[in-house]
């Protein structure tokens, strides 16, 4: 009885060994494999889109244009409608507002992470503010700033700054206590420890938080630019919507997507070159 169960267990393990599973846990891929799989994934997405376009009834086809006509719409926008100026304005709003959000959130998050009284003072407000939908501030911001750039940037700041503070607080608290204590026993001042020990130790995680939160800023861009806006990618998309130009709307979405991917690449590259000591962990 027990003999057979041992045998069958051995057989079972042999079977597993003969047929290695494709999806093993904790395996890594070469750069080439990762790229090929990524391209297959993208190809499949655009293929499905094209198939869906072909299967749509002829009279409804303009509501689901093919990927190629969206790209054509995008090039036409750039060549004929000076679309790059709108892209530039949107980029200015995103990066300008995100820069201001970082100038507020990085020092505040680190201060809160280092000093319990400051954390206790500010944390309840920050935690609560995260639950407020940024879009609900639009009427207020319109009254305060009018339909200006400031109004749009204020919305983008409100959308990310509270999350950014909370994330940077987490990043700061995750710094090992022993690093702080080691610096204390070496006689380092509080300022020195906050800036050159905790700040330095948390910096890769903080840049990661920024990279994630600028993606959220992009999601607020269209909301900011569909209300009382004449320029920017969102405004172009809103105008196209009024004339049912779906290919132009989708070209706008595509443009935002491309900007987002480029932003992500810039952040990753910056982290790679700014933190050579952290490279191994990034893999």
């Amino acid at each position: 009885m027990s003999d057979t169960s041992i045998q069958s267990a051995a057989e079972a393990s042999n079977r597993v060994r003969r047929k290695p599973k494709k999806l093993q846990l904790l395996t890594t891929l070469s750069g080439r494999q990762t790229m090929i799989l990524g391209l297959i994934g993208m190809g499949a997405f655009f293929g499905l889109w094209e198939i869906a376009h072909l299967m749509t009834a002829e009279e409804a086809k303009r509501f689901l244009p093919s990927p190629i006509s969206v790209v054509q719409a995008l090039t036409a926008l750039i060549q004929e409608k000076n679309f790059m100026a709108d892209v530039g304005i949107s980029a200015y709003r995103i990066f300008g507002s995100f820069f201001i959000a970082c100038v507020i959130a990085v020092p505040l998050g680190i201060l809160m992470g280092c000093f319990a009284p400051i954390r206790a003072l500010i944390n309840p407000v920050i935690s609560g503010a995260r639950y407020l939908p940024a879009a609900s501030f639009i009427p207020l911001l319109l009254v305060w700033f009018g339909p200006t750039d400031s109004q749009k940037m204020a919305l983008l700041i409100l959308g990310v700054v509270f999350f950014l503070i909370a994330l940077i607080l987490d990043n700061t608290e995750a710094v090992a206590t022993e690093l702080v204590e080691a610096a204390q026993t070496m006689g380092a001042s509080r300022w020195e420890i906050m800036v050159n020990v905790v700040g330095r130790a948390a910096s890769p995680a903080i840049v990661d938080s920024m990279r994630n939160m600028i993606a959220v800023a992009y999601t607020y861009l269209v909301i900011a630019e569909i209300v009382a806006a004449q320029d920017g990618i969102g405004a172009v998309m809103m105008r196209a919507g009024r004339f049912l130009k779906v290919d132009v709307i989708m070209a706008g979405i595509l443009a935002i997507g491309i900007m987002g991917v480029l932003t992500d690449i810039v952040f990753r590259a910056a982290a790679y070159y700014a933190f050579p000591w952290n490279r191994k962990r990034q893999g």
Partner: protein
Amino acid sequence: MKLKPEISDKEMITVNGVSKTYLGGKFTAVDNVSLDIIEGEIVAFVGPSGCGKTTVMRMVAGLETPTTGDILVNGHEVQGPGPDRGMIFQAYTSFPWLTSRQNVEYGMKILGIPAAERRERGQKLLEEVHLGPAADKYPSELSGGMKQRVAIARTLAQNPEVLLMDEPFGALDAQVRWEMQEMMVQIMDVEKKTVILVTHDIQEAIYLADRIVFYTRTPGRIKHDVYLDFKKGQRFTSKEDLLSQSGYLEVEKQMFAWMREEIQLQAT
């Protein structure tokens, strides 16, 4: 084997009736501990886990404050952490964003030592801990033992009067721990520090220390405070030399017996 350095009569560390309670007095971690440590002595704090030996050391470091009693180091009352008491932790505390050399120079930079002098002393210490070839590597490129050697060199670079070591080799595997212990004996021959070593490794304590302070389980009190007379005032650069001393085995057996008493008390 070498003679341990001349020990003066100067009291370097004085712990005066120190207690430490937590939870508003409900939990006593350290109960009325008093001891004097002479300049140049290496003293091991040994005892079962949670016996408060680390707490006593952290109070000497100034990272925690005694609930009652006071601690003097070189005649001054301990008010907080400071570079006169260098500390080495069990966790790796070499700063990951600095190379070995920058780590070793960091402590000297805090003290305002000029760059040229930092460079010179840093190089000397890196060689003392056998890290010369790894001077410009980041900790992520180093093994656990090498990271710990960076931390030791960084602490010694500040030339502290007292060296506090909290289970310094506890995270290392047996072979690396052994190498590090022998390296410490060699370093202490050059640097001549007053040392408190917290450890639960009985053999490590007997090998490195001149004197062992054995703590009882919670609340932490001093159970025994003994000089290792069988070493005849010597420190051994190889562990085999220690093991061949007559009297070694008796001491080790005695320590295990004390440890067993404390562990069994806990179980009943």
